[in-house]
């Protein structure tokens, strides 16, 4: 491959891939990121589910013989 070939390839590439214009951000993305953070911070476990989660814990404390049964079923 000589220098002429190099030039030719360079020229072909230049023609095939148009130059990119306006590479800067069109808008500020940080507010969107902050909104995402707020959403994930707001996704708390409701008290009803926490109360429900206490039931299996109590059940296993009072009936430990059920532990193997639960392990078998999950």
């Amino acid at each position: 491959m000589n220098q002429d070939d190099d030039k030719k390839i360079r020229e072909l590439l230049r023609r095939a891939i148009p130059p990119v214009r306006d590479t800067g951000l069109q808008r500020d993305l940080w507010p969107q990121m902050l909104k995402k953070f707020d959403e994930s911070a707001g996704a708390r476990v409701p008290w009803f589910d926490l109360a429900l989660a206490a039931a299996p814990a109590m059940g296993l404390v009072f009936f430990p013989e059920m532990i193997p049964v639960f392990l078998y079923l999950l």
Partner: protein
Amino acid sequence: MSSHPYLRAYMAGITVPTISLLLGLTAFTIARFGYQVPVPIERVIVFPMAIVPNLFGLWNILYVAMGSGRRLPIGLHGALLPFVLLPLAFTMATSLGFLTFGQDALVWLEVLTIPYSVLVAIFPVLLIIYYLVWKYLVAFLNGLLGIA
């Protein structure tokens, strides 16, 4: 990521029971070989290893297939699974010989006697566990894999 939704639903569904299988298998192995509890591990392990993960996967496929208009909230959908799972579990355990039904209690693994009253009381607890597992874990995995 819009292709193969059922495959992804299956994969999301089997993850939780597959991980909990490791915990269960560890507990049974320690009990069997560490403390010489006569657990017929090779018969016990068939159900949690083969049936439970597949049922979770298929149940999650059903959830995805029902579409957003017809399906129940995922927690309730998961809480219905024990109604399918328990009869299968009892049938399998009975046929493999490590569960026998007595007069007022069932005998589990030949060492655990569980009165029917306890079993009835504990059934809602199983529903709660399934509700929470599906609402939080399976739903999280579904979100991660871009389904539902």
